[in-house]
């Protein structure tokens, strides 16, 4: 790893001020640090936001669960409030990476990174989340732009993520046996007005599968999507899974999720 300047920001304003075109915010560092060690990324400045108190913590209201950006996966997984309001979200957090990652990795880091195989982006889409930054509020459907791409501007910092509490929901993933990232993860959420089937891992960016959600809107049962065959032409294909296999996994994981709702 190449040398860099380390800054410990005391509030969002300072963090934002310190940022430049050659800097990165550091939350849990579970992606940033390995990328730097492998030489895939290098920054002049790392701005650590872990001491910004405002960015951490979980708040539950009648309609939503709001999770601070630096809240660790383990905290979401173990939160009684989250387990009660959106059990599938706690469940998702419990399945991220391994204990080491869950003890350091943060929700804000995961969402800002937008890894095509990460778990949290699917929760944002399925649970009609709003991404609160130091500047504005962004709807999840407009936040995830492409592979590792988000609507965040340079220096813009995620402060919290607000999830809408659904009537029913479940997240099911087929993990990569090596990394335990999602080869395919499907987050099904039934809200009063709509049904979302958010899919991660299958395409370059998380997406809401309209065909599946439409079929489930007609009848919310796994049998209604039993024999669906999805178009795999724009799905990811790599040494771990072909596009065809991923397309099949989207349906099987969606079925499992519906059955678990």
């Amino acid at each position, binding site marked *: 790893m190449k040398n860099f300047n380390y800054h410990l920001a005391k509030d969002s304003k300072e963090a934002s001020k310190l940022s430049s075109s050659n800097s990165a915010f550091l939350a849990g560092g579970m992606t940033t640090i390995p990328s730097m060690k492998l030489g895939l990324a290098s920054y002049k400045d790392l701005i650590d936001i872990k001491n910004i108190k405002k960015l951490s913590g979980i708040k539950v209201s009648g309609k939503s669960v709001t999770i601070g950006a630096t809240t660790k996966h383990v905290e979401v997984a173990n939160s009684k409030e989250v387990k009660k309001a959106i059990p599938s979200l706690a469940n998702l957090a419990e399945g991220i990476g391994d204990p080491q990652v869950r003890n350091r990795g943060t929700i804000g880091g995961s969402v800002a990174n937008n890894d095509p195989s990460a778990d949290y982006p699917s929760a944002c889409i399925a649970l009609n989340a709003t991404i609160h930054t130091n500047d504005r509020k962004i709807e999840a459907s407009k936040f995830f732009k492409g592979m590792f791409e988000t609507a965040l501007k340079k220096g813009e910092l995620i402060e919290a993520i607000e999830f809408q509490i659904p009537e029913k929901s479940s997240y099911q993933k*087929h993990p*990569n*046996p*090596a990394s335990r990232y999602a080869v395919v993860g499907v987050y099904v959420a039934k809200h009063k007005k709509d049904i979302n089937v958010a899919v991660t891992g299958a395409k370059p960016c998380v997406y809401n599968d309209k065909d599946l959600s439409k079929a489930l809107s007609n009848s919310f049962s796994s049998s209604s999507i039993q024999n669906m065959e999805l178009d795999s032409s724009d799905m990811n294909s790599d*040494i*771990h899974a072909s596009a065809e*296999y991923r397309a099949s*996994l989207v349906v099987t994981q969606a079925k499992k999720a519906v059955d678990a709702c």
Partner: protein
Amino acid sequence: MASLVGSRVERKEDKRFLTGKGRYTSDINLVNQTYAIFVRSPHARAQIKKLDISKAQKSSGVVSILTGSEIAEDKIGGLIAGWAIRSEDGTEMKCPANPPLAKDIVNFVGDPVAVVIAESLEEAKVAAEKVSVDYKVLKAVTSTADAMDGDTIHEGIDKNLCFDWLLGDRQKVKEAFEKADKVISIDIINNRLIPNAMEPRACLADYNSASEEITLYTTSQNPHLSRLIMSAFGNVSPEHKLRVVAPDVGGGFGSKINVYNEDIVCSWAAKKINRAIKWVAERSESFLTDIHGRDHVTHAELAVTNDGKFLGFKNETIANLGAYARVFGTVTPTYLFGPCATGVYEIPAAYSNVKAVFTNTAPVDAYRGAGRPEATYTIERLVEKASMELGIDKTELRMKNFPTAFPFKQTLVHTVDSGDYVAGMEKAKQMADYNGYEARRKDSESRGKLRGIGVSSYFEACGIAPSAAVMSLGCGVGLWESAEVRFNPTGQVTVYTGSHSHGQSHQTTFAQIAADELGVPIENIDIVHGDTDKGTFGMGTYGSRSLTVGGIAIVNACKKIVEKGKRVTAKMLEASPEDVEFKDGEFIVAKSNKKKTIGEIAFACYLPGVRDEMKSPLPEGEEPGLKETAFFDPSNFSFPAGTHIAEVEIDPETGEVKLEKYTACDDFGRIINPMIVEGQVHGGLAQGIGQALYENAEYDETGQLMTGSYMDYTMPRADNFPEFNIGYTCTHATTNPLGVKGCGEAGAIAAPPTVMNAVIDALGGQEITMPATAEKVWKACKNLKKSNSKAA
């Protein structure tokens, strides 16, 4: 005194390992040391047109930058193949030169071309990036199966063929096949693996310009052997001016047998710059440059009668050596593989033919099991297929062809001294509730799942040693082992062994053996290993040889101590040596109450004489002191064997394979410490099951390693395994005084075919290659569904 051999003595080394007090190579730091970073080829095959270090030399903190030109000028030797193998036509194998730093041509991604030595690691890294190498990239050869059709990688080695080796009699096999009712044939791939020792390789080379001695601390399984190779072939230093220390080593699995480029380069460079040089591999370097394992493409056939007798066996294999042939590279796919490929069966005629090829991939060498997993996979997949095609129960078919008497003259090379394969099979069946399988299968079926059961019976030739045998097969050294047992005057014992522990628990098992032999409490016995300055010599640890060879050397040295003790006792107690018996640490004069403890005798040996109360005259001509050395060279290999049974459940919708049950019933002869043996079996199984279900080293067609990190290379984890059901049968080896056999590799040898036979059973006999990943299995499930609906 109760015998310690056979009891679950807690590991003496655990206190050190579990409290962070282990001392690994990278824990060692020397005053004024420098840091090395190796500049490595990013290409699988390329000519080095120009190597420019001028910019890098100006970089901050750089002490020296050395390249292949300097190493060639200094006539430093390259890395070597330790075994000379002859082709079927009698010609010698062809191996390329393997300079420690490539000068003209690079042959795999990671092949080092220069070393940058700097005051700090950071400065070395920054400077290394400034070394500019102009490569002319050439077309790489990466596929094992097609290597003989590719461009010639090494000048003068046609078809990239190192050798085309035959063991057995083609004519006899042909005749046997003509008599067969049926021929079962199989095409299989033994997937390439990366050893992944927990501790990456490291070395620290120091030079003393006054004594002209180089000291190399390195992660080696065999420091004496490394010194011999570096001295005799590397021309690094005369043997007496080279000390090699392999302190605590965090796992080897064969990958740390070899002397590596970095060992030679750092030792040579330390002398050149007259300063210590430290190098520690990053995990990415381990993936790229540690030796890899397996990588065979095999076609095999078994000739059978309708009632299930085996008549003949053919094994045609292409084995990938990678870019260069290393220490055990050429013997692994030949003598460690070919003879064992006929398995635990009486097969009248057999041959193994192996074509070993060079490719532009990391060198392939011995990895836990080395050749025997590939052999067992070949025969056990074939036998399982025969059972399906003949409609004979898989366990019955195996038992029908087991040898009926021991010694068992195995078809190709080995004479197996002892064993009882039927007893092993029957016990395994009972442990696994084999007869209750159908009910479990139906239960899986009722939940929409596919269940399969797989069996494999194995034997292996390990305790790799008999010098006369291995040298006749082409080994460059004899593979005996040495031990030295030293008493202090006050009665504690230090045992110096040429074996090396990198996870094998020698500190405990060897102490148990010595404690029993000498009647000294185990806490008064220390085991010393891993330093060429301590102990006589040693061939090191690999091929499950520590106990069966090194352990016996300790026994023999202890026996010499006891013999001397008897002579000294006789003199002190005025008896005849023949009348002195030794038991539980006491020398007793027969038919009397006169005795001396071994502690008293040790003391006497260091104070030979008479003064006042102290009366310890030594017999005339007896040397003072109490220290004995033994070299042990066994008459044969050791032959552990057993039967393993696995059950898997498959989710046909996703193809996920869940290993539900795993039973291992092994015969390791006498067991010294059952707890440590269990640990060895568990570790071996984890690696064997890993090969079957998870692990795979994959190169793309340009020779880039696609699985170069834990993001892509699937190391199995604890939650991938069921609780292992482990049991033993025991027939003592007749070739050593303890009756012991090797146990370290058995799991890795038996598990791949056991698990794959279960997977393939669940898939209705459809062949799939290892690892049985979810996607491969999912595809097979789809085929199964299609063929079932057609049948309906």
